[in-house]
């Protein structure tokens, strides 16, 4: 399969998306997988959505309201900005209001980075999952606080250098097993994906949209700026993460039924590690 051709096909279509920078170009770094993920997500989720977002790389997209438009008619996507640690709580509260106002069909999407999901907002996230709040929580995981300059998070993998784990003392702890933790809350639906597999990604978004209750999507979003690799390798890294079994593509229903969506090719992990500067001491 000509993967490059297929991907170009996906990423060159913009009609169904609502990430339309009117002046051309997003204010994210070149090669940002989060921006690609947001584009794919917008195509999968469709219309009638309210976003809850917070501090993080998505902020540079969300806060500049002129950057987010719906189609070409100058209408905007509703976003609210949540305190860093309150993404899930705000999403749940907003959903409660919409239910009361007879707007139950509006999908509340929380779009949060790994800092907000794994660290500062984990308590609220876990609680919202436990209460089975009817929201779709998307964690774009670039494995550290990239928006503030690459500080360690509990999503940072073992062996990575960050600005708070500077060389020669890389992180010596494991990454938090977030998708597993969410599954253990017995939520109706949880899944992982990357921007290298857009069909898998969008299928999961569509599937999540059709399910009631708490849904969690964990998206690995490689970051050229923090992971120290050339920006054109974002897709390659996203694919290698899956095929080296670093970040398998799977989904979990009710916390019990696991499905591996792609059998990894079993490429040696070294291939994934060696192109990233953050693993070099």
């Amino acid at each position, binding site marked *: 399969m000509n993967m490059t051709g297929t991907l170009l096909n996906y990423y060159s279509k913009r009609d169904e998306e609502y990430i339309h920078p009117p002046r051309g170009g997003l204010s994210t770094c070149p090669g940002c997988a989060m921006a690609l993920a947001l584009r794919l997500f917008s195509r999968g989720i469709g219309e*009638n959505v*309210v976003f809850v977002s917070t501090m993080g790389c998505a902020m540079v997209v969300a806060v500049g309201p002129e950057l987010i438009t719906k189609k070409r008619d100058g209408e*905007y996507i*509703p976003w609210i900005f*949540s305190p860093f640690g309150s993404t899930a709580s705000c999403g749940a509260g907003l959903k409660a*209001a919409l239910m*009361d106002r007879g707007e139950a069909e509006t999908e509340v999407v929380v779009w949060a980075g790994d800092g907000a999901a794994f660290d500062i907002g984990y*308590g*609220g996230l876990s609680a919202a999952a436990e209460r089975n709040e009817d929201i779709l929580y998307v964690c774009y995981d670039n494995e550290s606080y990239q928006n503030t300059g690459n500080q360690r998070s509990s999503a940072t993998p073992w062996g990575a250098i960050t600005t708070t784990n500077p060389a020669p003392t890389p992180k010596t702890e494991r990454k938090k097993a977030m998708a597993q933790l969410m599954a253990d809350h017995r939520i109706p639906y949880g899944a992982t994906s990357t921007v290298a597999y857009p069909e898998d990604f969008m299928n999961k978004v569509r599937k999540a949209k059709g399910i009631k209750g708490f849904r969690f999507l964990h998206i690995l979003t490689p970051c050229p700026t923090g992971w120290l690799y050339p920006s054109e390798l974002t897709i390659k890294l996203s694919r290698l993460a899956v095929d080296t079994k670093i970040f398998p593509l799977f989904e979990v229903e009710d916390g019990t039924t696991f499905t591996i969506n792609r059998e990894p090719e079993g490429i040696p992990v070294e291939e994934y590690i060696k192109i990233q500067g953050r693993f070099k001491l």
Partner: protein
Amino acid sequence: MKKVISGNEAAAYGVMLSRPKVICAYPISPQSRIPELLSEWCAQGLLLKAKFVNVDSETTALAYVMAASAGGVRVFAATSSQGLALMHEQLHWSAGARLPIVLANVNRQLYWPGGVGCDQSDSLSQRDTGWLQLYCESNQEILDTIIQAYKIAELVSLPVMVCFDGIYLSYLQEGTEIPEQELVDEYLPPYEPKFRIPRWGAKLYFKHPSEFPPELSLGLTGARYEMHKWETKSMDAFLAADEEFQRLFGRGYPAVEEYKCGDADVVVVISGSAVGTGKTGVDKLRQKGHKVGLVKLKMFRPFPRELIRRVLAGRKKVVVIERDFSPAVGGIFCQEIKAALYGNMTRDFPPIYGFVSGLGGGLIPHQADITPQLIEKAILYALTSEPPTQDVIWLGLKERGGGDEYDRNAIKLL
């Protein structure tokens, strides 16, 4: 209908009658009875048709109702002390977003040292968040103030904190008139938000500075100016809300209430449940022939500067007794009163004696509580002594052997 209920129950009744749609709370002492009752009524679905959520933390409680309020429904949350401290980020956030949330805060001490005793420092230390703050003297006032708070909050698009003393009001029971629902409905019509998160495809909602939230189009200075303006305007909203309340329910609560102040040379200023104690102290001194009066401060934010100036001008001495404390400064109400008077020196303002007392209440034997005797003592001290050179006098500590030689020489203890 009159019932003997605790302050917590009075708050819950006030909430029920105001018909919020989303209610959040975390069970923190000593306010747990509020969410218990509300959840019971929500579960029955007769008295209250709302979504009650027992959340994982105070951070979540306020974040949850904040987002619900932004989504366009009337909301309520309750908390106390540590919980309010944990809400600090969301307090700033919700006031900045101009959301008309009503929050009940049961005043209780902040750790360390630990305990559940009464102390108003928890909410007073949130004074710069932009929330309006109202303090209650009785359980009836708690119930009525909750209803009024919705009126005020929705008039000015600012959140209101209804504060009442832990233990003294939250746990103790009093005969309380529970108003008829029809009457409350007349006072407080169904909520229609001035601003809310737009629906899908709507035009962006902050195109114009007059729209909510003004923040984004005016920059931070402009946003804070707007907030300041509406905080100031909220005094008028408070007066209007109270006037209408009086008309419908036959009772009301001034921002600054005078008690026997007519000919008083010395006026004592108190807020919260100690007001009743203060009135007893004043009565006793009146019987002994002293011209003393009491001023009850209900409103703390916005601070009723002009009313305070009016009531304190021309007195010989002013005594402030309070159950809160700002380290190395003294009482917080006292600071505010001084600030209100300074800068308006065209009138003859009296010296102010600031007393701090009864922190943590009198539940534990070694703690000093505010008693009528102590209030008498403080007023008599003010009557017979030169104006104090220090900002704070620790009332009730000396007789318990507190302080050291330095304190006694400097008359910091009484």
